[in-house]
């Protein structure tokens, strides 16, 4: 009763990154609250899926396996989650702020009349005093999220309705295997009890999923270029530096919009979130929406001709200069010092 539950997104038999990250976060929250961590896996051919889930410290996984449940469509997944939550009454439910979670989450929250906080960047347990009603709430989930185009950060709480639901984007929480041998239990759901034929109103006629070529999130070093790179050709300098240092190339939205590099490299509020050991921002001004995707990097180097560029305020090293001069020198002196 009143556990923490994570909805697992599954694509081609694999639990999505964001769900793995949320299970790690969920385990932490469950420990703090002294409750169990549960997960829900909905799809098809899910034999053995629990082996990908238990290592994150999941105590119970609910599995709904049916050919009609994959790929994801809104109504049947909603129907299963809604009924399951009514039965199990979790206190906290987490989903990815992905194309799946942001389609499913609001629908589930509406059906259960529970609040949903979108796109959280941090989740912590805390108390709340409602002075007007003279009431104190213990162990609520503080759901912290940017709004207003990233210009404000709000702490949202959900005092009275359960579950407290939140979505979180991929790359925001850290994933960590708790114990490769952790054993929980599998509860198979009888799908026919949860969904009706009417839930299959929307039909997928065709589907093209692109396998991502770039993996910025796993890269220890990210070298990102902005509009200040000036051209697609200049971006080659970044690829060269990435090659020498062993990193990936990222970009600001202005660079992507200018066509310097493909969209999947965009970092920031509407791109991916990265937290590498080293982030090198080249010709990036550092607007709030960009910083949202990189400010937790362990070390930041900013290369910018403008000594007042906002990015400098969060940098560990500020190099005031032209990328065309700085980048070749970085390559040169890296090579010299590693010989």
């Amino acid at each position, binding site marked *: 009763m009143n556990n923490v539950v994570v909805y697992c997104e599954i694509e081609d038999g694999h639990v999505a990154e964001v769900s793995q990250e949320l299970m790690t976060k969920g385990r932490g929250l469950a420990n703090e609250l002294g409750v169990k961590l549960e997960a829900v896996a909905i799809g098809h051919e899910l034999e053995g899926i629990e082996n990908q889930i238990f290592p994150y410290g999941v105590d119970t996984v609910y599995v709904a396996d049916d050919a009609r449940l994959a790929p994801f469509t809104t109504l049947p997944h*909603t129907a299963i989650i809604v009924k399951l939550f009514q039965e199990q009454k979790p206190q906290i439910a987490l989903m990815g702020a992905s194309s799946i979670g942001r389609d499913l989450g609001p*629908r589930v929250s509406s059906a259960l009349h529970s*609040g949903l906080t979108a796109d959280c960047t941090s989740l912590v347990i805390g108390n709340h005093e409602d002075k007007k009603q003279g009431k104190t709430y213990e162990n609520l989930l503080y759901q912290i999220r940017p709004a207003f*185009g990233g210009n*404000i950060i709000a702490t949202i709480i959900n*005092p009275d309705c359960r579950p407290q639901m939140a979505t979180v984007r991929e790359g925001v929480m850290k994933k960590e295997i708790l114990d490769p041998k952790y054993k929980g239990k599998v509860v198979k759901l009888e799908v026919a009890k949860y969904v009706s034929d009417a839930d299959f109103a929307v039909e997928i006629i065709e589907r*093209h999923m692109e396998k991502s070529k770039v993996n910025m999130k796993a890269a220890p070093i990210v070298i990102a270029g902005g509009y200040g790179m000036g051209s697609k050709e200049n971006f080659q300098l970044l690829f060269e530096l990435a090659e020498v240092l062993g990193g990936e190339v990222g970009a600001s939205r202005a660079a992507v919009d200018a066509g310097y590099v493909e969209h999947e490299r965009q970092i920031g509020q509407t791109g991916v979130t990265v937290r590498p050991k080293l982030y090198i921002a080249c010709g990036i001004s550092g607007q709030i929406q960009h910083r949202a995707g990189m400010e937790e990097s362990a070390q930041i180097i900013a290369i910018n001709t403008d000594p007042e560029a906002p990015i400098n305020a969060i940098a560990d090293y500020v*190099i005031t200069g*032209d990328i065309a001069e700085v980048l070749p020198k970085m390559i040169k002196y890296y090579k010299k010092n590693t010989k």
Partner: protein
Amino acid sequence: MKSFKVIVLAKQVPDTRNVGKDAMKADGTINRAALSAIFNPEDLNALEQALRIKENFPGTTVTILTMGPGRAAEIIREGMFRGADDGILLTDRAFAGSDTLATSYAISQALKKVKDYDIIIAGRQAIDGDTAQVGPQVAEKLCLPQVTYVEEVQKIESGKIFVKRRLERGVELVSCPLPMVMTVNGSAPDCRARNAKLIMKYKHAKTVTELQNSNEDYLHLYNDRPYLNIPEWTVSDIEVDHAELGLSGSPTKVKTVENVVLQAKEAKVLSPSDDDMDTLMRELIESHTIG
């Protein structure tokens, strides 16, 4: 050929994308007065999809429904200038403090009064609240199927709509029976520009409240040209349970809000000189950050 009744859900939002230097006050808080109020960008993409349906199916009507303060009537006129037939402003103090659940409740109750709709089109996300929740929640409240992240309506036949969806890592073509709710992505085609003839036709369109505050010279127009009257609905015009509205109908509460203020940390400032570059690379190698 069949025609449809299309409703576009549109929100007037502060232009959070153009938060310039004057938009931040000295104390680091947002100077809302310096932000202009605009038609939520993705709602314009939604409107364009609606107008395309109207073109392809003559007789189709496009109605803009917006919930907000009195001035939100501006975006209804804006929509009319681009081809919408009419609009409804849902406005009442009782809606203040609504979270997405209370917002979608109010909107869905207004839609129940509209009745007979075939297609409800929302934007994916509003740029102020930034949640992307209202569309799917309206769908749930009306017990309708939903299709999110639509980029293109391909066809409507035999009571089904066929659309292309843009997902994070791919594209889907789906069919959905009518009536339905869809949310449209920013990657969908931009909205057409205002049309000069429509500006002439609708520039005096007003809500009752606006009319009361306006120049009397025009008053005769509103009896002769009923399309100039923008209906304004308050809670008393729709059937509602008051407990579901505004703050009391909102499970989520904003506990605190912080404005983002840049905090400078101690940075090492370097020049592009050979010496500085050499030192930098050595430091990074020694600290095992690279290498």
